[in-house]
């Protein structure tokens, strides 16, 4: 009998708020993050980077650097594998430039030396001759006929003929006849929107410690969202057998998608192989901004038609995403998320992935979705305003729900958008009076969520406690969620469970921690691994009692005979079974290895009040409420934390954060001083409402929550600011000067 612990109510542990298992380490400074590891004989590395946006590399001369005191090795592209193709080639090209530097900050060489200062001094002594090439950093300019070509032949088969070679991928989807739909509308609004690239802004710079011998065996310690991926990529880039490189994930100081990519680890390993010593490589903050993966910048056109009663008759969007000097901007995600909240008869969405001389974009929390929501939800807001409709009622009227057809094709299963809208409407925030100068905005947001390859191993100890090895780094308290779910199945206290993040040699493959998949997929795998162990525990009890295995069931940490026919035996506690497990069949553990494919999507509705100083254009967010569907909140405090964190990042994106490039194609604000992420005094408390519409694809109904929370804020804040200022804001960030300009042109117009 397969054990099935599926349930959506009646939880004992899930839904409680215990202290996180790694709390003590993290408040005492003893938790070891990427840059906190050392090894005997360790060298320090530094990377030489291009100061040019686009330049042919004519010559690299490291003679002077190699002659300096303490310098042990220099690597360039020649020290990496040759003959790579596809994505591995792209990654290598980004990790270490080949014959061309493609963006300001592109790595061209690296040094290992006995001290960090010696390494820093040595890279200054490396001479590089460049031939400067024309560059382009803006998405619309990169698509224009006269734009310099970043790399000929980079486009894939999806791109229609006649587009600039910098357009490398194309997406088009939808259904119905949008022109017919617009003809049915009482009002059609079409508008153009622009967003700047933003960075995930994790506080911990990328860091690693690598050891690689000429025997092809290596050890790597690094902060990453996915160490199996790092293992695979490093092996490919260095020509190693994957299994010979063991990768251990450090504690990770934030990622938000930015640590799904590989940047420095192969460099540290190449230096280590050359110097035959461990090499530590830690990025500076400037390097993080210049040479890791920010989001795409976008240029978008959205057109929506609406009837007087609020019915949307048709919607159309064109989304152009600048993704840096490599293919991969998530134009299809932007397009598919754009109209996902709405039940539309006629819809069409088009996405362009466009290369430019900027760092290769990386995933950032629901990659591509927040920008789409900004454009779409702004137009809906404007329609509501012009037609004098309530913005929540209008969204409810058109909301996607179970059985309606999604804008990207399939029929929706059970989803929770309507529930978030209803909860938002009922929230006191929505009806609270506004002060003069303030405006209120709302927005919906959507993200797909993801499952992915997952392995979990659970081992029982002789005293009836459990150790769980998962393969998804704990970015925000996931050890606690895993322990709670295991407690629920095993029926043993939360405190009796120890969760660790296993290294690549100790557990089967695990996909990167992305797509809000950790609590869903590692959680599901933990539940299944615990069920596997429970089954074995029951079998041991059955053997002891001399009854069939299916006559035993598990409850609250005890094996029990399943009814009078099974015999009258006293319940057998877990510790009694594990105490003798060596003699009754051997150690008991549970496993689960699979690719769970039931990640439920998550919708959210945000409400925000903003106040605009009309003399300076300054905006203050005065009140913020997040309403989101979590399916089932395993540890509600950390779910709230995800909601709040996403909202805060969205506030930064909406108001002040941006990549600023000069005419020379160089990044002008590669530091926290001028890349302005929100500080404590910028923000109000962020209220949260957890909606729970269980996901049928998870035993406890869990939906991923990490990403959706950043989808609505851009639009919600833009709608609030537009209401407060009395003028529609179409470009992010809404920095003060931009708001003043909008106010000026509104006054002129």
């Amino acid at each position, binding site marked *: 009998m397969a054990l099935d612990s599926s349930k959506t109510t009646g939880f004992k542990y899930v839904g409680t708020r215990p202290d996180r298992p790694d709390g003590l380490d993290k408040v005492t400074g003893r938790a070891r993050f990427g840059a906190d590891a050392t090894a005997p004989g360790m060298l320090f590395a530094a990377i030489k980077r291009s100061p040019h946006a686009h330049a042919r590399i004519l010559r690299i001369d490291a003679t002077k650097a190699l002659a300096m005191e303490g310098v042990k090795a220099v690597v360039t592209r020649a020290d990496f594998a040759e003959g790579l193709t596809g994505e591995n080639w792209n990654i290598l090209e980004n990790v270490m430039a080949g014959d061309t530097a493609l963006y300001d900050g592109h790595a061209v060489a690296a040094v290992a030396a006995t001290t960090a200062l010696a390494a820093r001094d040595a890279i200054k002594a490396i001479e590089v001759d460049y031939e400067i090439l024309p560059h382009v950093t803006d998405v619309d300019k990169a698509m224009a006929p006269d734009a310099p070509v970043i790399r000929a032949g980079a486009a894939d088969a999806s791109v229609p003929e006649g587009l600039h070679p910098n357009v490398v991928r194309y997406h088009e989807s939808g259904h119905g006849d949008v022109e017919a739909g617009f003809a049915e509308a009482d009002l059609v609004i079409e508008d153009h929107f622009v967003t700047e690239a933003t960075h995930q802004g994790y506080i911990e710079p990328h860091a690693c410690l690598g050891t690689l011998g000429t025997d092809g065996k290596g050890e790597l310690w690094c902060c990453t969202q996915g160490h199996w991926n790092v293992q695979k990529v490093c092996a490919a880039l260095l020509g190693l057998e994957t299994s010979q490189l063991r990768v251990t994930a450090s504690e990770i100081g934030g990622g938000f998608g930015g640590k799904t990519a590989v940047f420095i680890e192969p460099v540290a390993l190449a230096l280590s192989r050359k110097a035959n010593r461990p090499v530590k490589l830690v990025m500076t903050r400037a390097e993080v901004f210049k040479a890791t993966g920010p989001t795409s910048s976008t240029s978008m056109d959205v057109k929506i038609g609406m009837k007087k009663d609020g019915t949307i008759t048709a919607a159309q969007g064109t989304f152009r995403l600048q993704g840096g000097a490599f293919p991969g901007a998530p134009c299809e995600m932007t397009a598919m998320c754009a109209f996902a909240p709405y039940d539309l008869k006629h819809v069409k969405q088009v996405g362009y992935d466009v290369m430019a001389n900027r760092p290769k974009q990386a995933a950032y929390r629901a990659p591509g979705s927040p920008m789409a929501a900004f454009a779409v939800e702004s137009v809906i807001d404007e329609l509501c305003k012009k037609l004098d409709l309530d913005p929540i009622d209008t969204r409810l009227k058109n909301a996607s729900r179970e059985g309606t057809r999604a804008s990207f094709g399939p029929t929706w299963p059970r989803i929770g958008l309507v529930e978030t809208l209803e909860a938002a409407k009922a929230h006191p925030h929505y009806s609270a009076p506004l002060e003069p100068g303030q405006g209120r905005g709302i927005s919906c947001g959507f993200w797909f969520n993801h499952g992915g390859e997952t392995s979990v191993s659970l081992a029982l100890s002789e005293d009836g406690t459990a150790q769980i090895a998962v393969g998804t780094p704990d970015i925000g308290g996931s050890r606690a969620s895993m322990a709670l779910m295991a407690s629920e199945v095993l029926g043993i206290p939360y405190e009796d469970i120890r969760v660790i993040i296993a290294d690549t040699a100790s557990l089967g493959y695990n996909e990167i921690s992305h797509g809000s998949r950790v609590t869903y997929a590692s959680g599901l795998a933990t539940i299944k691994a615990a069920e596997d162990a429970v089954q074995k525990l029951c079998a041991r009890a059955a053997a002891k009692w001399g009854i069939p295995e299916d006559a035993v069931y598990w409850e609250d940490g005890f094996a029990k005979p399943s009814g009078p026919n099974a015999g009258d035996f006293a319940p057998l506690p877990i510790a009694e079974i594990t105490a003798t497990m060596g003699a009754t069949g051997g150690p008991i553990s549970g496993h689960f290895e699979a690719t769970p494919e039931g990640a439920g999507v998550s919708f959210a509705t945000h409400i925000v009040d903003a106040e605009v100083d009309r003399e300076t254009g300054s905006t203050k967010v005065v009140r913020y409420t997040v309403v989101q569907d979590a399916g089932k909140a395993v540890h509600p405090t950390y779910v709230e934390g995800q909601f709040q964190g996403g909202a805060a990042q969205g506030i930064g994106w909406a108001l002040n954060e941006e990549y600023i490039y000069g005419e020379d194609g160089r990044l002008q604000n590669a530091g926290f001083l001028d890349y*302005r992420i929100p*500080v404590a*005094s910028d923000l109000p408390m962020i209220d949260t409402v957890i909606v729970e519409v269980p996901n049928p694809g998870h035993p406890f109904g869990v939906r991923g929550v990490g990403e959706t929370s950043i989808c609505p804020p851009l639009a919600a804040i833009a709608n609030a600011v537009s209401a407060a200022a009395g003028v529609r804001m179409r470009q992010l960030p809404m920095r003060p000067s931009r708001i003043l300009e909008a106010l000026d042109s509104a006054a002129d117009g």
Partner: protein
Amino acid sequence: MHYHRPATFEDAVALATGSEGVTRFLAGGTDVLVQMRADIVTPDTLIDIKAIPGTHEIARQEDGGWRIGVAVTGAEMREHAELGRDWPGLVEAMDLIGSTQVQGRATLTGNLCNASPAADSVPAMIAAGVTATITGPGGTRTVPVEEIPAGPGKTTLARGEIITALHVPPRGTEGGDAYLRFIPRTEMDIAVVGCGVNLTVEGDTITHARMALGAVAPTAVLVHAAEDALVGRTLDEDALTALADLAEASCNPIDDKRGTIKFRTHVAGVLARRTAKIAFDRAKGAAK
């Protein structure tokens, strides 16, 4: 890099005069260390002046003014209740620089000598009429602080010269000062525009006025005409408009990542009005 910690200003001057290459004085280090980290400047000689006696003192002078040592931190100024009562604008300007952590190290003198056009404390010091004593190989002199910055990152100090103390004039009765800056966030930013105003009044009539602007020109600007515009009248709407117009007319800013010419000029006018109102209220409050 050589690091020195002299015990007297004479030794500091001798070290600075006698060293080759790039020399920097180290007080709070909140600019120098950033420049070193970013490879903007790598000094050959770094002279830490914090071991020199008197550099950490805030001292009331016989005339009622203040002598502020060159290593006095923003946090120490903030905690000095009497100084804050006399010169709230000056203390607030210093307090606006950076974080609590930066306040634990940053100094008025460092902010002045870093010669950033956007330095928050400088317009407040200029408005207050602060002077600096400078010692160097050629002797000692005292100059108004507005004469020290020469342009972004440049000062009028000669090689080997060092500021040994700042002097804040006596507040007297019936005076008030204020400083406001505009930044996109609420903290941690460099001023897009800064404005310091210092007024004295008799009843409702302004008897003395100084206004200085930051981040709108290569150095902080003393708006000389503000004196004429305000003295002899009260701070009514006409006076505020005149002051705002003067502020805008005094701007010679640049377009950069922190703000455009148009935005900076406009905000200078807004801040002039807002800052003057606070200074006026403080002056009248002091006169009660």
